């Protein structure tokens, strides 16, 4: 009989769940596009269980992570930081990973990994620059969907320099460019490189070593991934499970902890 574990990643902008069988096979997953402090966590949990046709009681161990990890005491057996969970998830998907870059809704993290274990990390300061929130703000000003940024940026023929690090000042720059009838795609290209430059600066603090993996929702934006590859000079690997990476790591840790507690 299989052992089922559940990883729940409550981020600032999305709630994600991954259910594993025996710590290796993904049985079910869910994603709700609202995060901590909303109905998102409960909806994501309900959905992942429903998809697998299981109940909470079928879970051998539940582990919460993410910004809202402390709000799930009723359901979670344990909670861990999302940094450890992202390291775990990335190591599962890419066993040779040494650097993980996670761009989330409100923060950026760069993790150094040795033999599948996080050995060092760096996070952004209290600033939205380089985060998913930065892209949200820019998409709103440009009147495009944030999910379309990657596709639109790929159509750019020349890059517009967005030099301000501060989100507010960068927004002013974008508005100024729009007022000058600059092509939106070129502006978006500039925005992607602005994010990449900021994240690369952070990554160099801990050192960048192949294999480099990018996780989090922003990893779905090919424009940012490409710009970051240019900035770092390293190939960046992503997975279709990029948004679920933290929850996957949480489910893997849940399985480990279950086995440890059984001994």
């Amino acid at each position, binding site marked *: 009989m299989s052992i089922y574990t559940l990883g729940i990643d409550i981020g600032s902008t999305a709630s994600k769940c991954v259910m594993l069988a025996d710590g290796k096979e993904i049985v079910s997953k869910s994603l709700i596009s609202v995060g901590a402090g909303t109905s998102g966590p409960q909806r994501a949990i309900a959905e992942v269980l429903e998809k697998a046709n299981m109940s909470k009681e079928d879970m051998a161990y539940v582990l919460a992570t993410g*910004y809202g990890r*402390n709000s799930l005491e009723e359901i979670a057996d344990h909670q*861990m*930081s*999302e*940094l*450890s969970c992202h390291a775990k998830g990335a190591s599962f998907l890419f066993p040779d990973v040494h650097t993980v870059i996670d761009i989330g809704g409100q*923060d950026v993290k760069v993790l150094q990994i040795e033999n599948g274990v*996080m*050995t*060092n*990390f760096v*996070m952004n*300061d*209290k600033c939205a620059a380089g985060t998913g929130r930065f892209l949200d703000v820019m998409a709103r000003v440009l009147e495009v969907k944030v999910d379309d940024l990657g596709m639109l940026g790929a159509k750019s023929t020349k890059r517009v320099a967005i030099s301000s690090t501060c989100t507010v000042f960068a927004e002013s720059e974008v508005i100024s460019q729009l007022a000058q009838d600059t092509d939106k795609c070129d502006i978006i290209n500039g925005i992607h490189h602005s994010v990449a430059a900021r994240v690369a600066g952070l990554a160099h603090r801990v050192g960048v070593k192949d294999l480099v993996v990018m996780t989090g929702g922003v990893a779905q934006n090919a424009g940012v991934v490409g710009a970051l590859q240019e900035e770092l000079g390293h190939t960046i690997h992503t997975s279709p499970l990029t948004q679920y990476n933290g929850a996957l790591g949480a489910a893997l840790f849940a399985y480990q902890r279950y086995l440890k507690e059984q001994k």
Partner: protein
Amino acid sequence: MSTEILLNEFKEVSEHPYKVLSQYKQEGKKVIGVLPYFAPVELVVAAGMVPMGIWGSNNKTIALAKEYCATFYCTIAQLALEMLLDGTMDQLDGIITPTICDTLRPMSQNIRVAMSEKLPCIFLAHPQYRKPAFGLQFTVDQYTHVKKELEKISGTAITDEALREAIKVMNRSRAARRAFVKLASDHCDVITAVKRSAVLRAAWFMEPAVFAEKLEALNAELAQLPVADWKGKKIVTSGIICDNPKLLQIFDDNQIAIAADDVAQESRSFRVDASEEGDPMMALAQQFADQDYEILLYDEHSNQNRRGEFVANLVKKSGAQGLVLFMQQFCDPEEMEYPYLKKALDEAGVPHIKLGVDQQMRDFGQANTAIQAFAEVL
């Protein structure tokens, strides 16, 4: 007195310094506000007055001070002025304004202008070259100015004898705090990060002799306890200030104890004693000259990265597994020094994290994640 009663007393003082100030005034005592860093509080004590440290506030929001301050002033300085402007510190009889950093220098003048009708402001400029004879004499001259101004406020002359007694009191307080830091590490199951901070913070608000006596009593109680069989992690803290209970609670929640510190408001303020013999003014000047491994003071051998090595060694000697640096926003000296500290820590194999903080932070979600992740790495 039991450990719990003493700890509660320190906590009350730490959380409500304004009540303590009112109490002193009701008792007919004169109270002198003392801004950071290295003000000779011995002179205040020798004048028969109470020194009251002003290290900003974790509960107030900057509003009135904005009229005087550029946005890049640290919140400690801005909130100090805020409390002077909003009436919180109305009961003070005077204030000493040291000028060691680029923020405190102009701030001393902002305070002087803002308080011109309200409060005597005593300007104090420490010398950059504090060790040579001319530097020592400069410090004596500056302290003599402070002494004269305090004498005007207190209405009594500060005798050499009274100053020597004050030095003894402060040496006793410093010795008790140094002993407490070691005991707090040994008994980190009892002295949590929050409690440790409250004790050390209370030193800035309590009458020094009373504080020393109570802390010696607490130390005696702690010394009786068996050394903690600590299963959690131990770290060293570094930075200008780290006294927000909500932030420190994250350490306690994650089973992280503080083995030692390199914090300006804590150990960096009581590492060096003053001589109890000879000319007491020169003894205070020499005490300032003897301050070392200090970001805010000139180090002619800074190219040797002595301070970085000192902090790395502090981590190793204290038995800590890593260091958490609380980087005060807009603190130029700390930010400028960080790359050298990082280099020394990396070379010594000491893991560390840097957390950006300011006194207007109300949400510690990101700090919580970073501290928990650091504990998981350790």
